């Protein structure tokens, strides 16, 4: 047995020609991070994959059908009465887009960074921090896409959508996921312990409870309503709800704009924090 033969004539350091910031942070091989993601999904136990899909479905069945039997109909977007299940279904889609994106960009990134040391291995190759971050955010969005598609199928089968506009809920779920994932990854760069990571859950749970997911925010005093309306999930829930019945008003643009701005800021923020997150 001799040393491995040298067969690699052409060195593929594709970063060679890239300027400034990219030369330091990317090799242009981002797609290989995504390739790994798909390979792992293919090898993975399918139960792990579908469990993420069932969570909002169980919520919908227990709250929508169970609680819905007590509540009856409620006022939907524009005031038209809709069933309680149809009221919460779009909210659950927005919430699960948020939860999946946050989980992937915070806990998952934190774990792979500090414990599995997966990124340490990747960053010892010609991959740069940008490639790892962009690839992982893409994978988070892909999982979000699968879940959103599945959930759309369920609520359509249950007769909870009444407009072709509901199809737009899938790309909007991705936009919501992008907003949360990019912000989540940037925030993770400031954390170094599990206790700090717990703060994320502490912030998310009340946001889920109060962002007009399970009941309208009109039950709260005006000041509390303003506070909730400043938070992202409320915009996601309202936008999804309007899409589910195809009722639009000026606020639709506000909700959409909120997430466009959040995504742009989140990506910029994560980009700024990339080196602090991955290089230390």
């Amino acid at each position: 047995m001799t040393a491995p033969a040298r067969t690699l004539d052409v060195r593929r350091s594709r970063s060679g020609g890239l300027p400034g910031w990219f030369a330091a942070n990317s090799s242009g091989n981002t797609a290989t991070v995504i390739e790994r993601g798909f390979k792992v999904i293919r090898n993975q136990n399918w139960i792990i994959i579908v469990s993420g899909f069932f969570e909002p479905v169980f919520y919908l069945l227990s709250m929508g059908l169970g609680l819905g039997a007590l509540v009856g109909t409620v006022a939907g977007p524009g005031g038209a009465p809709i069933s309680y299940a149809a009221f919460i279904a779009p909210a659950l889609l927005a919430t699960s887009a948020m939860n999946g994106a946050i989980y992937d960009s915070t806990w998952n990134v934190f774990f792979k960074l500090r414990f599995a040391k997966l990124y340490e291995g990747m960053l010892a190759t010609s991959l740069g921090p940008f490639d790892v971050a962009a690839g992982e955010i893409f994978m988070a969005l892909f999982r979000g896409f699968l879940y959103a598609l599945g959930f759309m199928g369920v609520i359509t089968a249950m007769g909870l959508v009444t407009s072709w506009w509901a199809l737009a809920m899938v790309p909007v779920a991705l936009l919501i996921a992008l907003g949360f994932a990019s912000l989540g990854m940037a925030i993770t760069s400031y954390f170094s312990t599990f206790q700090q990571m717990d703060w994320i859950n502490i912030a998310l749970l009340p946001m889920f409870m109060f962002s007009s997911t399970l009941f309208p925010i009109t039950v709260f005093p005006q000041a509390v309503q303003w506070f909730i309306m400043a938070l992202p999930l409320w915009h996601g829930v309202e936008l999804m709800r309007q899409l589910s019945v195809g009722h639009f008003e000026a606020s639709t643009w506000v909700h959409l704009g909120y997430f466009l701005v959040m995504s742009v800021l989140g990506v910029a923020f994560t980009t700024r924090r990339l080196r602090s997150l991955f290089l230390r």
Partner: protein
Amino acid sequence: MPVIEARALTKTYGDVHAVDGIDFDVASGESFGLLGPNGAGKSTTMRMIGGTSLRTSGTLLVNGLDPETHGPEVRANLGVVPQTDNLDTELRARDNLIMYGRYFGLPYSYLRPKADELLAFAQLTEKAGEKVDNLSGGMKRRLTIARALVNEPTVLLLDEPTTGLDPQARHILWDRLFRLKEAGVTLIVTTHFMDEAEQLCDRLIVMDHGKIVAEGSPADLIRRFSTREVLELRFGSERNAELVDDLRHYADSLEPLPDRLLLYTEDGEAALARVRADGHTPMTTLVRRSSLEDVFLRLTGRSLID
């Protein structure tokens, strides 16, 4: 042009000076060692070379490029074996090699035969389809080294390559590293084992508390900082300390360790004869040649392994 050129290289974590202004060059094809106890700053230096740790100050060039501003390009020619294995546990052994090669942008047509060749090199051919978690510590280590070779690096960084391996696995690994050296690969090895440093390194720096305390070839360091031979005497743990002053004049110098006294002298047998002639009765004695361990002890007054 040196493969690596470090000047006043410094890394601080808060108020910990992990690497405290070190200068060194590594020539192409050289086997270069960083020897020092835990916490000396060896791993931090390695990470800065790979551009995965950002330095606090100083300059560093790897193949003429700054790894902080050209990380991907620098690492395209680097093989990195980290101190703790970071294999991808969600992929099987062979896929670990192939996927890692993909990160370098290498095509499958190159990677499939390369992966098989490297598995053979690491004596892991039968484990190709095994889950990483099912491999023994030695196998994981060899797979990690095989993985670092997938891009045919010209510079291989090995951070404590044999820590945690049994003696047989260590010798297999040293043999493999020797072949790579013969093939012209520049090796940069950190270790806190003096025998490993003596086996693998043409030249080394001895580090302590982030600073370089000595530099040279193993033989050169031993010649400069130690005597030819060492006489080890054991009088039992209580008596060792009491006898330090009595025995000092039998040797060029004396280093007391908790379990034994080390007398540095050109001729160990002669010194032992004189010690005995004067009526001292050590429980056990040993005359041996000086090693890098002694160099470190004499430079810092402490052992490499604590």
